[in-house]
């Protein structure tokens, strides 16, 4: 039987995120948009368990469902999209440790990630020449003769929190000739010699999140820090992205909600030029379209999450949810800006910020084009 009811746990996690977001985070959101990394905030979120929403309680997580995760990310994004993406990426790294790691790795990396001892976790897949074509990455990890460590070399791009992370999940080739099956996943300690942080990207939005390139110059990575067996790195990355895409869908809808909220708050002050010809109706119809698209997108995100909670494969549904939700957010933020009057054009207004923040959601964790490839491949042979 279908059931759209949230569980008590899910409601509790949503409220935990909402209460924090609406109070403490709300006071800091403008400072984060001015470029301040939310260091204090991420520590406090860890204290609440929100850096490991799905991770086991025994490791400091909340033991929540994927649905709870989407609920929490949306609540945070509604107030501060920068904090939401930072939180989402840390959660994603933790989830991979839970899913693919062993107990030793969970003790070593997951516990400090969830406690806030680490400010964040980072996910390092993309390279300068391997973006949408992720499997063509050229970073490589070469096993030492005695089998005790790998030597990691390469450069990664667009790494969220790469300069503050305590653990970086890196995908690198261990077999240059095996294509995607030659990729392995490693947890890399940023304190290791040869780990270099490149320049900070100056972005249009998400200014409170940190985005850097990372260069590994013969970084020694203990063999014990390889996640799972050799060759499963691409599967780790794709599993991470299936969950991550639900998170980005939820984030995009949180951003859209803040734009719509900003517009509705501004509506009483907006006077129509000619009511008889229906300028008010024009605005009202667009608001109806915004809310409808957001609702549809939200149901798609929740369905992908629910499938994951049921242990089902949900790559297609996650891709559909991500592309639909992020494009809805693009439509909502643009339309809200068009309807809101001069205040909506202000860079630091709720709508002005949402407009800038929402745009990257159609690009990161797989562009809209990549999502469409994933969807098409699940339906059409040979795409």
């Amino acid at each position, binding site marked *: 039987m279908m059931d759209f009811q949230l569980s008590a746990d899910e409601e509790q996690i949503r409220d935990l995120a909402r209460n924090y977001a609406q109070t403490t985070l709300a006071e800091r959101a403008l400072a984060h948009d001015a470029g301040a990394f939310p260091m204090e905030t991420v520590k406090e979120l860890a204290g609440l368990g929100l850096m490991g929403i799905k991770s086991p309680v025994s490791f400091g997580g909340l033991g929540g469902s994927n649905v709870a995760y989407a609920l929490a990310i949306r609540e945070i994004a509604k107030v501060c999209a920068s904090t939401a993406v930072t939180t989402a990426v840390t959660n994603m790294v933790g989830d991979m440790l839970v899913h693919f790691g062993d107990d030793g790795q969970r003790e070593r990396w997951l516990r400090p990630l969830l406690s806030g001892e680490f400010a964040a976790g980072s996910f390092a897949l993309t390279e300068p020449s391997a973006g949408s074509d992720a499997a063509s990455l050229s970073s490589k990890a070469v096993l030492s003769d005695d089998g005790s460590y790998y030597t990691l070399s390469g450069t990664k791009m667009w790494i969220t929190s790469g300069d503050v992370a305590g653990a970086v999940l890196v995908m690198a080739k261990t077999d240059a000739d095996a294509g995607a099956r030659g990729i392995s996943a490693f947890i890399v300690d940023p304190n290791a010699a040869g780990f270099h942080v490149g320049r900070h990207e100056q*972005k249009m939005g998400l200014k409170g999140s940190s985005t850097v390139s990372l260069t590994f110059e013969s970084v020694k990575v203990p063999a014990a820090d390889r996640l799972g067996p050799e060759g499963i790195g691409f599967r780790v990355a794709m599993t991470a992205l299936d969950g991550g895409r639900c998170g980005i869908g939820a984030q995009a809808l949180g951003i859209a909600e803040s734009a719509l909220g900003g517009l509705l708050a501004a509506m009483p002050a907006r006077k129509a030029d000619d009511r008889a010809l229906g300028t008010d109706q024009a605005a009202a119809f667009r608001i109806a379209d915004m809310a409808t698209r957001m609702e549809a997108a939200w149901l798609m995100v929740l369905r992908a999450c629910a499938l994951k909670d049921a242990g089902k494969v949900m790559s297609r549904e996650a891709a559909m949810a991500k592309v639909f939700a992020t494009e809805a957010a693009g439509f909502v933020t643009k339309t809200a800006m068009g309807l809101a*009057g001069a205040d909506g054009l*202000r860079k630091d207004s709720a709508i002005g910020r949402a407009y800038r923040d929402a745009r990257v959601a159609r690009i990161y964790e797989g562009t809209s*084009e990549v999502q469409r490839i994933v969807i098409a491949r699940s339906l059409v042979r040979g795409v």
Partner: protein
Amino acid sequence: MDFALDETQQMIRDSVRSFVSGQVREPAMKWNEGHGDANAALKELGGLGLLGILAPENAGGAGLDVATLILSLIELATGDAGLAAMVAHHNGPALGHLLDADFSDKKLLSRFASGDALLCRATDEGQAHLDSATVETTATQQPDGGWQVSGSKRLVPLGTLASHAIVSAKTLGGADIHLLVDLSAPGVSRQASASLVGLSTCDLADLTLSEVQVPAAMTVGSSSRAVALGRLTTAAIALGVTRAALAAGVTYTLERKQFGKPIARFQPMQWQTADSATELEAAELLTYRAAWQLSTGDARDFAVEKAAVFAMEAAQRVADRALQMHGGYGYTEDFPVERHFRDAATLRLLTDGPDLQRVVIAKGLAQAV
């Protein structure tokens, strides 16, 4: 029918194009990061005659037509939309208003037409042109026939740089009046407006007028042409942004390789490029037709409004696609496309927004039935 430009139009377009290549395109990246401003470039444009395009030569201007103004603005906006917005405002709704209303002080007029002084037109009082009928600024007639003006205007282009502003106000009797206000007069205060999402190089100010005395001779007649010029010059800026964004997208997709080939060879990129190029073409033709009408007489058939709606919205779509083609790079300030995306969204600051223009078109069509 003839879609060719005349020699003068070609010459002016080419000279603006080379000015943009040499003195705008690169510096614009710095201006938008907050380093330096476009004011020196604005001054140089005055030296080239681009601050008095429509003013007759005997009034110190270049004596050119609206089409030439539009062509110049398109070129300028390919380099920097904020700079183009300042040039558009001075030439179009501001100076265009004085010319249309046959303003009598020829000496002052020639200062604006030569670019020695900048002129702005202050109408907006808060709702970004969503309700241009609501003017709360008051003009009270004095015994000597002059006016005392009080009120506030915001987001006025050229508001801090201009020497004078055409201010819209209501008389005690409720009539609309426009007055040319010397911005150095007692009672005028102005401050830079809050930063907007886009058009960050465009000088914008909020003006407060507190019992400002304006001589009777500074009364300016009304001008429907000023409104049309505001709309059409905004369409021109939109076209420049569109052109720049389209070119940026095409260039990037030819250079960027994924899956072993330039991404320009993938159908989703090709479709986006084709749609953008088609929309640009349509927007250009709508704008040129309206410019031709205004160059030879008055606008008809809501050609101006149709051009403005279509061009403003096309700019947003095309910039959005171009940014998408750039992937993550498009979201950074290293490439101009993120600026095109923000500028396109901010264009309606300069004129009535697309929704209001739609109402104008629909109302006009309803009356014609």
